[in-house]
C-alpha cells in the first residue's frame, strides 16, 4: 500500500503536464501584458517532454514483453494502453496549442488561464486513461470537464461563446449526475469500486465479483452500468446524448473546438474501453447489443446531419459525431479482443491528426471573429492558395476514408475487428455510412478545385508560422499513418493486449 518514489516515477508525464500548468499560471503573474504570447510556447514544453517520455516508454516495450504497473494500490494502471492514449491526448494538445498561438492573441483571450486550463484538461485525460477504479475515474473526468467548460466559454465578450459554454456546463453537470448514480449502484451491488485486476492477484474487484457471486442478472448492477454508459456517452458525443455538440462546437473558440473534438472524445473512449473490457467484460452479452444500437444511431444521424450543413465548422462538428459511431463499432466488437482495442487506439490517433488538421485549415482561411467558414468561402481556394487547398484536400479524403490515407486504414481495421466478431450487419452500416460521408467531404474538395471566383473577391488567408507548422505536422501524420501503419498498429495492438486481464 505504500507509495514509493518509483511508483511516482511511472506518473512522470502526468506530473510534468501538471507542473507545466502551474508554471504557466505563475509566469502569467509576472509577465507584462504585451509579453504573454510566450505562454503558449511555455505550454508546449511540458507537452513535448511528456510526449517524448511516453514514446520512449512505448518504444522500449514494443519489442520485448510489455510492462504493466499498478500505481497507488490498484487505483491506476500504467500500461501500454494508457501510454498509447497519452500519445493521442498529447498530440491533440500540441496541435491545439499551435492552433491557439495566433488566435489567443488576435481575439485578446486571457493567455495564462487559457494554456493552464488546456494543460489541466490534458492532465485529466491522462488520468482517465489510467484509472482502474471508479472514484479516481470520476474525479479525473471532472478535472477534464471543468477545464473544458471554462475553455469553451473563455471568449467572454462573445455572447455565442458564453451561451455555448453555459449549455455545455448544464448538460454536462446533468450527465455527470447520472454517471455518479451509476457508480453508486455498481458499488452497492458489488461492495467495491475497483474495476478489475489485470494481473489476476485480487478477486475482490467488480469483474471478479460478477463471476464469483454470479451477478449477471442483478438489477442494481445492470442499472448502474447503464447509467455509467450514459455519462460517458455524453462526453463522447454519442447519439442520443449529442444534443450539445453542434451548439458547443460552433460557439466555442475554434482551437478549443479542435482540441475538444479530438481529445475529449479520445479520453471518453479510453475510459469506455477500460470500463467495458476490463470491469464489465463478463457482461459483454448484455452491453454489446446496446452498443450495436448506439453505433448505428450515431453513424446514421451524424452523417445525415452533416450532409445538410453549408457551414464547414458545423459540418465538421456533425461529422465528428459520425466518427464517434465508427469507434463504437470497434467497442461493440469486443470478442475480437486486442484487435478491437487496437483499432480504437489507432483510429483515435488518426482522427486526431485529420480532424485537428481540418480545423487548422478553418483557422487559416477564417478571419477575425470566426468569419469565413461557409462552404462558399472555399470557392477557388486551389488557384489562390494551392498549399492550403492541398492540405485541406488531404484531410477531407482521409476523413472520407480513401485508400492510402490514415482514415482508410483506420476504418479498415475497425471493419476487420467487426468481421472477426461476427458483426457483419454493423460492418455493412459502417461501409454505407462512409460512402454517404464522401458526399459532404468531397463537396469541400470540389468547391476548392472546381470552382472559380473573380479576382476582386479573393480574400487573404492567415500565414502565421504556428498554423503552418500545425497543418504540416497533421498532414505528415495522416500520410505516415496511412502509408507506413505497421509500427503504429503493432504498438496499438500490444497496448490493446495489455488492457485485457491475464488469461482472457
Amino acid at each position, binding site marked *: *500500500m505504500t*507509495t514509493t518514489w518509483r511508483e511516482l516515477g511511472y506518473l512522470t508525464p502526468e506530473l510534468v503536464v*501538471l507542473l507545466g500548468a502551474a508554471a504557466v*499560471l505563475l509566469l502569467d503573474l509576472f509577465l507584462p501584458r504585451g509579453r504573454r504570447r510566450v505562454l503558449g510556447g511555455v505550454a508546449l514544453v511540458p507537452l513535448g517532454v511528456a510526449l517524448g517520455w511516453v514514446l520512449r516508454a512505448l518504444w522500449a516495450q514494443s519489442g520485448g514483453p510489455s510492462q504493466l504497473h499498478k*500505481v*497507488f*494500490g490498484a*487505483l*491506476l494502471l500504467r500500461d501500454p494502453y494508457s501510454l498509447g492514449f497519452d500519445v493521442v491526448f498529447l498530440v491533440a494538445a500540441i496541435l491545439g496549442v499551435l492552433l491557439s498561438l495566433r488566435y489567443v492573441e488576435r481575439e485578446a483571450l*486571457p493567455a495564462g*488561464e487559457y494554456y*493552464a*486550463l488546456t494543460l*489541466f484538461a490534458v*492532465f*485529466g485525460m491522462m*488520468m482517465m486513461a489510467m484509472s482502474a477504479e471508479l*472514484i*479516481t475515474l470520476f*474525479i*479525473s473526468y*471532472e*478535472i477534464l470537464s*471543468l*477545464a473544458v*467548460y*471554462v475553455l469553451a*466559454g*473563455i471568449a*467572454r*465578450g462573445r455572447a455565442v461563446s458564453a451561451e455555448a459554454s453555459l449549455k455545455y456546463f448544464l448538460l454536462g453537470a446533468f450527465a455527470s449526475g447520472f454517471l455518479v448514480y451509476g457508480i453508486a*449502484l455498481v458499488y*452497492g*451491488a458489488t*461492495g467495491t469500486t475497483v474495476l478489475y485486476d489485470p494481473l489476476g492477484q485480487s478477486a475482490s474487484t467488480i469483474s471478479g465479483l460478477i463471476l464469483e*457471486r454470479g451477478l449477471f442478472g*442483478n*438489477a*442494481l*448492477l445492470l*442499472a448502474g452500468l447503464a447509467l455509467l454508459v450514459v455519462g460517458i456517452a455524453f462526453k463522447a458525443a454519442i447519439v442520443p446524448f449529442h444534443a450539445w455538440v453542434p451548439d458547443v462546437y460552433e460557439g466555442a473558440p475554434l482551437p478549443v473546438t479542435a482540441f475538444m473534438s479530438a481529445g475529449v472524445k479520445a479520453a471518453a473512449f479510453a475510459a469506455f474501453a477500460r470500463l467495458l473490457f476490463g470491469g464489465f467484460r463478463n457482461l459483454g452479452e448484455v452491453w454489446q447489443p446496446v452498443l450495436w444500437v448506439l453505433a448505428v444511431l450515431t453513424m446514421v444521424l451524424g452523417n445525415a446531419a452533416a450532409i445538410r450543413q453549408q457551414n464547414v465548422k458545423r459540418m465538421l462538428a456533425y461529422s465528428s459525431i459520425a466518427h464517434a459511431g465508427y469507434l463504437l463499432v470497434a467497442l461493440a466488437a469486443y470478442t475480437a479482443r486486442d484487435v478491437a482495442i487496437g483499432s480504437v487506439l489507432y483510429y483515435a490517433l488518426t482522427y486526431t491528426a485529420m480532424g485537428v488538421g481540418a480545423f487548422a485549415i478553418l483557422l487559416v482561411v477564417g478571419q477575425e471573429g470566426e468569419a469565413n467558414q461557409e462552404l462558399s468561402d472555399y470557392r477557388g481556394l486551389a488557384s489562390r492558395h494551392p498549399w492550403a487547398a492541398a492540405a485541406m484536400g488531404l484531410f477531407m479524403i482521409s476523413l472520407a476514408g480513401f485508400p492510402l490515407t490514415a482514415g482508410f486504414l483506420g476504418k479498415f481495421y475497425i471493419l476487420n475487428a467487426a468481421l472477426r466478431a461476427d458483426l457483419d450487419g454493423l460492418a455493412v452500416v459502417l461501409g454505407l455510412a462512409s460512402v454517404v460521408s464522401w458526399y459532404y467531404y468531397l463537396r469541400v474538395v470540389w468547391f476548392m478545385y472546381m470552382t472559380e471566383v473573380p479576382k476582386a473577391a479573393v480574400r487573404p488567408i492567415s500565414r502565421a508560422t504556428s498554423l503552418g507548422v500545425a497543418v504540416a505536422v497533421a498532414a505528415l501524420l495522416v500520410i505516415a499513418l496511412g502509408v507506413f501503419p505497421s509500427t503504429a498498429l503493432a504498438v496499438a495492438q500490444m497496448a490493446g493486449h495489455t488492457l485485457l486481464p491475464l488469461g482472457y
Partner: protein
Amino acid sequence: MSAHQLAFLVLGVLILVSALMVVTVRNLVHAALFLILCFAGVAGLYVLLQAEFLAVAQVLIYIGAITVLILFGIMLTRKITGGAQPPLASHWKAAGAGAGAFLLLLLYVAMTGQWQVSDQPPMDSTTTLGLALVTRYVLPFELASVVLLAALVGAVLLARDETR
C-alpha cells in the same frame, strides 16, 4: 415502528417536500431556502446512518458554501422578487413524464436489486475516513486539489469583469 424508523420517515418527508418546492416555486430565493432545508434533512439522514463526519461536512459544504454561492448568484442576476416570468419551461409536462418514467426504473431497481448486507459492526467513521484519505485514497485526495485549482482559476476568470 421504532424511533429510528419514525425519524427516517419524518426526515424523508422533509427532504422530498422541500425538494419539490425547490423545483417548482416561482421565487428563486425561496427555492434556495428550501434547498437549505432539503440539505439539512439529508444531514439528518447521515446521522441516522452513523456517518457523523459527513453530516457535519454536509452542513458546512452544502449549506454553508454551496447555497450561499447560489444565493449570491441569484442576487447578482435578477430581481429578488422573481419577476413575472413563468418558472417552468413550456415542455414541463414532457419533463415530468421523462422524470416519472426514470423514477419507475429506479424504484424497480431499488426493490428488486440484490446486495450483500454485511453483519459486521460499523467502524468509527471519522477515524476510518481520516486514515483512508491519507493511505488507500491518497491519490483521489490529491486529484481533488487539482479539481479545486482548475475550478478556482476558471471561476475567477469568468466572474472577473472584463473591462478592468
